[in-house]
């Protein structure tokens, strides 16, 4: 049976990808952030998954305003990298895991999650930057297949935080029921606090971010109880992306241990964080 071996929470700011693409990770501006990633990257390099399920949001690239899903899952053989306005990132095409995708879809729909099915999907920085955070030098191909799981965070009403945690729990159950013996990592992406537009642009709320970084391990229910307005007020209009971490957290289950985390301000207009959790339950049964 498949198992979730680890979960990674990480910001997906485009400029983090651009810093890697343009070889600026040793620059004074970026070095502290990438130094913070190093221990997590070293650990993940020793614990490689067969498939990464990447929970993210599209940013006006693949999802059209005409039809916006709350939750969507990719079921394709591969996903092209989107041109977000400056040409596609020079990274490998993203290979899918269509059998796992279809299994997860069936299980989630049976459990009452009303998934939209994407048989064709271009993936933007929301997905590719987290892949680069995991694997900065992929060469010709990414080291794992990917299942994209999209969440609407850009148009109100977003799903509630509680619904995201519930989806994560159902996702974990769905993964564990997949009959092949594969190792799966789950990425929750977005955040930390940030707001791009309006008079509060540049908002950083470190207290909230640090509370969230702690509670995502120990008390995700308290984060699931926060309203959309709580997230927007405390973490900014785009900080609500953090609800996607709860999907990763739900999939991990109750027996986890923190491998590493880091928090840094700024990554362009935002706070950036990474938190890596090992699924201890998977380790002991392996």
């Amino acid at each position, binding site marked *: 049976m498949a198992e979730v071996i680890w979960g990674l929470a990480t910001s997906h700011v485009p*400029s983090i990808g651009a810093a890697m693409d343009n070889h600026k990770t040793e620059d004074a501006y970026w070095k502290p952030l990438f130094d913070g990633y190093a221990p997590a990257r070293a650990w993940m390099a020793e614990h490689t998954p067969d498939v990464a399920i990447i929970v993210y949001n599209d*940013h*006006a*690239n693949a999802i*059209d*305003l005409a039809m*916006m899903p709350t939750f969507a899952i990719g079921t394709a053989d591969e996903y092209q990298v*989107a*041109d*977000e*306005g*400056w*040409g596609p990132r020079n990274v490998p095409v993203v290979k899918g895991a269509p059998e796992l995708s279809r299994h997860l879809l069936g299980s989630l729909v049976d459990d009452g999650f009303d998934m939209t099915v994407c048989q064709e999907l271009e993936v933007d920085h929301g997905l590719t930057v987290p892949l680069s955070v995991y694997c900065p030098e992929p060469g010709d191909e990414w080291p794992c297949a990917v299942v994209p799981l999209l969440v609407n965070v*850009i*148009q*109100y*009403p977003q799903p509630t935080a509680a619904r995201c945690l519930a989806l994560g729990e159902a996702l974990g159950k769905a993964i564990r029921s997949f009959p092949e013996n594969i190792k799966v990592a789950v990425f929750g992406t977005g955040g930390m*606090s940030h*707001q*791009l*537009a*309006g*008079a*509060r*642009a*540049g*908002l*950083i*709320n*470190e207290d909230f971010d640090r509370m969230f970084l702690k509670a995502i391990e120990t008390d995700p229910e308290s984060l699931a109880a926060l*309203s*959309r*307005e709580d997230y*927007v*007020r405390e973490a*900014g*209009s*785009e900080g609500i992306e953090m609800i996607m971490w709860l999907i990763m957290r739900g999939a991990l289950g109750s027996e986890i241990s923190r491998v590493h985390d880091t928090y840094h*301000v*700024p990554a*362009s*207009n935002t*706070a950036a964080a990474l938190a890596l959790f090992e699924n201890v339950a998977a380790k002991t049964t392996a």
Partner: protein
Amino acid sequence: MPAPTTPKVPGTYIFDVADNGRAYALNRMLGSFKDPRNREMFSADEAAYCDAYKLNPEQKEAILQRDWNRMLDLGGSIFYVFKLAVMDKKSMQDLGGIFTGMTTEEFVAALKAGGRHFG
């Protein structure tokens, strides 16, 4: 049960389905810039491109004048609006300065100093 309503947070745009409706032409035009051919076509004749996407006069004026705050006021989504900024070689920090009445340098410095704090 009261009607669900979009939260209001001072100093913050929350893009909702009603904004999607009123700014649909505006955001669709901005979204079209995913395609490099559309970026070229817009640059060749901005006003004609706005007309082809059926922008109303307010929306068109905001685009042609690069009135970034007004684009947001008219229901533009920041992720769509940013595509025009990219074409103008403006960064998100440049926009951050414009949104907050600072120079880009001041805005970048505020972020480097730990970001802006509220409430």
